[in-house]
């Protein structure tokens, strides 16, 4: 848990960031396996921290984008790993022992058992809508919030979540659609009572109870796994997750079709709703970072890429609230780590409008030379070894691609070598080739 020093209010954003970063890089609170692993941790974390601050580290840091690769590596399916936390722990630690990387990317966080109990409708996973041997899970987009529900979402969010969204997204919560509103205090205990006497609530309570036990069990093991990886000297370069205000609606609530309609039919409602979620997103990100004692906040981005919207739409709908969220985080000393899925070539000029060395941009299919040219002075960039190459390329091709990336992006510091996306089904030797490349070509 991060505790602010007493003079926090007087510190500049940079000072705040540095306090957080240094604390994280020192490995405070971690019980290391040995003095060597502690040294290893500090070396890796310092490398990453320097890159984030646009300083020159000993060599280019490398985040092997692990994804669910540890399952394959251990000869188990993703399904086995998801349903059996013990197996997951063994597989992930096996990976840590066998592969070098500057970070530990964390365990699986999708909770299959929990979603089984609650009958999640928004996800598919191995054994539940996907073949048993799938190596990923899938989000099922839909219009989970109706076009006319923006006002409800803003004016009575609890009610919206409970009586509208949950029944649509979880089978077990369906009956919440029939319970009376909680928006009035008078008679509330009676209404709760009536809700609890519905046999469907009793079923739900049983499911929740089972699910919460499964969740705690899973979290406990996941936490042990992370602690063990840290103890072996691999830092977690992630203190939490956040998303762009636009994506809250485009991904989770309205879906692609819905949000496009809204951009034309009720643009002001989108703006109003984004304003509403912005402070919550910010508060949540800060809380997560404090809890994890790590200033880095991963931000997977979706609907703002080159192909989804025009420049004008990006500058109208996507960027303004997103930027304010980024700046809000930066002011609290956090380091937002947006992951620009897809391509961001046309966005580069727009997104450069941020304080220096405040954000790390991870790119998927964006042209990295261009990114370095346009953003290189303002922020650290990261990426973009193609997943296709990791899955199908030879080690020579892999090393070659990494070398070119390093030559393009590393000069002057501010670059982290990584993938365009996660390497769930990569050839093992290609993961090693990445580390070899960075050792060979990435020394400053």
């Amino acid at each position, binding site marked *: 848990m991060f505790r602010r020093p007493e003079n926090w209010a007087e510190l500049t954003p940079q000072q705040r960031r540095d306090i957080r970063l240094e604390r994280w890089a020192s490995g405070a609170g971690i019980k290391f396996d040995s003095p060597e692993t502690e040294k290893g941790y500090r070396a890796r974390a310092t490398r990453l921290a320097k890159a984030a601050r646009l300083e020159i580290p000993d060599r280019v840091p490398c985040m092997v984008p692990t994804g669910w690769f540890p399952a394959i590596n251990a000869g188990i399916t993703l399904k086995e790993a998801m349903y059996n936390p013990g197996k997951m722990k063994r597989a992930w630690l096996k990976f840590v022992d066998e592969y070098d990387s500057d970070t530990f990317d964390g365990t699986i966080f999708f909770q299959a058992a929990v979603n089984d109990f609650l009958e999640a409708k928004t996800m598919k996973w191995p054994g539940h809508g996907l073949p048993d041997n799938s190596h990923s899970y899938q989000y099922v987009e839909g219009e989970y919030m109706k076009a006319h529900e923006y006002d409800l979402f803003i004016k009575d969010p609890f009610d919206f*979540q409970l009586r509208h969204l949950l029944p649509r997204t979880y089978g077990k919560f369906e009956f919440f659609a029939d319970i009376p509103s909680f928006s*009035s205090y008078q008679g509330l205990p009676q209404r709760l009572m009536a809700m*609890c*006497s519905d046999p469907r609530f009793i079923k739900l*309570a049983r499911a929740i*109870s089972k699910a919460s036990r499964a*969740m705690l069990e899973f979290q406990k093991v996941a936490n042990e796994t992370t602690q063990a990886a840290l103890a072996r000297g691999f830092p977690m370069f992630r203190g939490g997750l956040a998303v762009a205000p636009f994506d809250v609606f485009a991904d989770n609530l309205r879906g692609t079709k819905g949000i496009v309609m809204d951009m034309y039919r009720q643009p002001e409602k989108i703006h109003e709703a984004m304003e509403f979620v912005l402070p919550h997103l910010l508060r949540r990100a800060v809380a997560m970072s404090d809890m994890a004692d790590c200033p880095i906040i991963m931000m997977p981005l979706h609907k703002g890429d080159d192909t989804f919207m025009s420049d004008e739409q990006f500058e109208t709908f996507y960027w303004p609230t997103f930027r304010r969220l980024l700046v809000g985080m930066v002011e609290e000393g956090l380091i937002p780590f947006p992951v620009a899925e897809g391509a961001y070539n046309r966005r580069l000029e727009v997104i450069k409008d941020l304080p220096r060395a405040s954000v790390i941009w991870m790119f998927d299919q964006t042209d990295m030379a261009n990114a370095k040219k346009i953003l290189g002075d303002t922020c650290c960039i990261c990426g973009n070894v193609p997943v296709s190459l990791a899955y199908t390329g030879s080690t020579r091709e892999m090393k070659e691609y990494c070398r070119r990336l390093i030559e393009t992006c590393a000069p002057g510091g501010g670059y982290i070598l990584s993938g365009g996306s996660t390497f769930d089904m990569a050839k093992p030797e290609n993961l090693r080739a990445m580390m070899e490349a960075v050792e060979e070509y990435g020394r400053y």
Partner: protein
Amino acid sequence: MTTRNLFDFGAQVPDKPAKWEEMTWQEKREARFDRWLNPPDVKFVSSEAEKLYKARVTRFIKAIKLEEPDRVPVMLPTGNSPAYWGGANFRTLMYDYKKGHEIWKKYMKAFGDMDAFNGPGFIPSGKIAEVITSKTQKLPGLGLPENAPMNQFVEGEYMKADEYDLLMLDPSDYNMRVMMPRTSDFFKAFERLPSLRISYGNIWLTAMADPGIRKIFQTLIDMSDEQVKWQMASMEINNYIRSQGYPSLFGGLMAGAPFDHFADALRGTRGIVMDMYRQPEKLHEAMDHQLKLMVETTIKNFPMTQSPVCIMPLHKGDDTFMSDKQFAEFYWPTLRAVFLAMIDEGLVPMPFAEGRYTNRLKQINDTPKSGVVWWFDQTDMAKAKKTIGDICCIVGNVPTSIVMKGTVQQVKDACRKLIEDCAPGGGYILGGGASADTAPMENLQAMMDAAKEYGVY
């Protein structure tokens, strides 16, 4: 502000006519009246009972529409007086749900003709009340003497002066996480509920992993058999009463004035007076917010119910609590908006003006003709008839003191005077100023007699 399931005397059936949206409010109301007159869920014991039921409902409908019925309809202030007539009291009925049945059945038979009748009202289950404690309500034997004839609300500053914004940000969340733990020790652990405001992931799981919170839900589930027993008992007696030909006047939602929502339940008298001077804009903002929420979540698309009449007890707007100017500024605009929303949905708002509304009469006369039914307690009824008699049906107001302690002749005299003042031209329902929980049967019968003797059109 609304307690939809508390005052539920009949099944709610979503059987609105097609094209509901396109109908005028009068057409919607006619559809609701029609359902009141021909209740699909009532099995009358005889065609005689059915005939009487229809005649009684017709009497009320005509009065509401400012027409002249065959005679002045009567809404007797029976309250829970059958309990006392039958040798029981509020507390015994809290614990013995069936006992109410026997007494009410006998009472009905002994009484004879009535225009409306209902089973025991507002008597909660004692077993449940003992477990699910409340700081805001005292009951006979639970904070009040065992022989107390009714429950008492304990006013307090349950919402703090600086919490209006928090409430408006997320009202349901505020109720669950702030008000519930503050007003009931049973719900104390709800303080630790996570916010549902923007829920990613499985927030309920985190909540239910907390043993205190789990215990609350477990207890609620454990109590559910008792709750079902209590509900069934209340439904059974009311179904029985209906089948014998006695309608209920109330059947819509129970609601109140937005001002009272804050003054009664949240801020208390002292708190609200401070707010009227120190932060009037906040209060207005919050009332508007509450109004919109109430209209959107409760009034709009209100289901078809046995009767469309919505009882609305009013408190802090009476003559003595606030000035005319304050009434015009704080109380009336949002209350009127609630009326209009109800009317638009074909419902019949029936404000119950507790205390005195004589000063207010001139201020409440801008509602659609025949849209609102005003039930008065201590208001000057002759003046009421003169001031709003052209636009609203009025109800009241035989003094509770006379109904409870007066002679039969005194009751009849009071009724006669009222009928002479208020009945001409229609639009009047004879009623009490409040319900008289320990009224002798003969005094209530005297009211019926007076209506038949003096109230025939």
